């Protein structure tokens, strides 16, 4: 008895030898090729969009340019923010004034003119001052005298704490009235 395997191999051998006869094998081949060509490949919109958008990564010079532009953008951003932060920090140290009390010093402008007058006497006579020289001298003398007396007064006040307290209270009262205006 022949083993099963041998029988099987014989059958397969016979089948191989007895191939069907084709009328036009070339036509069949062409048909197959035509079908394969006609069949559209399955498309993925997202992957095609990704391929389209990122096709530049395969072009060396475009890739390098875009990377350089990104780096430049980041550097510019860091630099600008750094400069701005530094400037704002400087600004925060700037003096804040209380504008409510921003009253001009009435004496400064006249003091400048007085300094000039003191330094030059009649030499630099002002076009705007129509008072006589004697009157001007009197005024200067009285201002000088007043300054001395003012300093004396300051000294007296400094030496007497009660008086100082009283004056400070009075001055605060004046300020209060001013604010209410």
């Amino acid at each position, binding site marked *: 008895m022949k083993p099963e395997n041998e029988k099987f191999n014989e059958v397969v051998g016979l089948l191989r030898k007895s191939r069907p006869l084709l009328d036009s094998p070339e036509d069949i081949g062409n048909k197959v090729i035509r079908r394969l060509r006609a069949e559209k490949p399955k498309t993925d919109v997202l992957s095609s969009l990704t391929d389209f958008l990122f096709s530049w990564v395969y072009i060396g010079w475009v890739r390098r340019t875009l990377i350089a532009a990104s780096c430049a953008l980041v550097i510019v951003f860091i630099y*600008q923010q750094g400069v701005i932060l530094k400037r704002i920090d400087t600004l925060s140290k*700037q003096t804040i004034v209380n504008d*409510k009390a921003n009253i001009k010093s009435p004496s400064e402008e006249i003091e400048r003119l007085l300094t000039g007058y003191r*330094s030059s006497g009649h030499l630099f006579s002002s076009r705007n001052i129509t008072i006589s020289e004697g009157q001007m001298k009197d005024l200067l003398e*009285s201002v000088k005298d007043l300054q001395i*007396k003012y300093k004396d007064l300051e000294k007296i006040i400094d030496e007497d704490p009660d008086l100082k307290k009283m004056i400070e209270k009075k001055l605060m009262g004046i300020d209060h*009235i001013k604010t209410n205006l």
Partner: protein
Amino acid sequence: MKNKLSKLVLFSVLIFCVSCNDPETTVTNILHTDGSITRIIEMKSMEGDSLKRFRIADIQVPIDNTWKIKDSVATDKKGDKTWFRRAEKLFKNVDEINNAYKADSGINKKSVRIAGFKRKFKWFNTEYYFSERVEKIFTYGYPVHDFLNSEELNYFYSPESLKGQKEAGPDSLKYKALSDSVKNKTDLWTYRNLVSEWIGEFTKLTEGTAGNDMPPAYLKSREKDITDIFKANQKNIDSLWANGTLLRKFIGEENASKYKVQADTAVDIVTKKFTLDFREYSLKIVMPGKLIGTNGFIDSSKVLLWPVKSDYFFTEPYEMWAESKTPNTWAWIVSGFFLVFVLTGVTMRIIKKG
């Protein structure tokens, strides 16, 4: 009694000076991103006479009937009245402000003031720069920073309110000493400027005629000596100048008689410059966006503030400037997208390659 009298005299002098400075004026420039400027002038006057109050000729900055004007009055507890005027106008650009300055008929018309505006696009932000500049009066003067140190300079340029606060504060003694030091040094600065200006003008007048008699550098080299002579003879300077003693000391016997006319003319020129009419006021600027730089002071309402006094622009231009920025939101978004896009592309390539 003596002290009371002193006070009385002091107050009368102060009142005289206050009325000199009337009206008290503050100019506020509100800058818009398109370069237009809303200008607000606020004036305060104690003047009782309605005809004398807020006269255009007395106002520190240009104003005319094209402004929106609003008047009000306040009465204090004692019954004293204070008048207020608020004027507002929108200027299309700084050129309009500059034209107004050129056509100014107010008290400060002789001073040259220029407003400037710059806008810079810097991708992430747009920066704005606004300035108001007052041109210098003296041609041959010295900048004040040659005479004052940084602390003194800061004090010199401070608004009165700040000086007052400091002098009344816990460090009052320190600030009083600082105030005295600034006063003494600025006095010296004034003397030097007067002398320097006179030398400059006199040299200009005698140029070409003096020749080898008096080389231009000669007087300049004697500037310090002349200042000392000037200071030492303050009391009788009139008579000393009139009889030619001073000029002889300055330029020698022969030259004094030869160039007396030019010397007097130079004095006249310096006098005109020195006594230039200028009434001080305050300038405020409100910038668009976030403030990033200024040389001004910041007031309690976060508005920039500068006092405008003639001392500040005697020998060098006085520029009050501020800089701010507004973020360009669209640029931030575009930049963000771009960075993500490039980063994604590069990452994808690395993954595919791997």
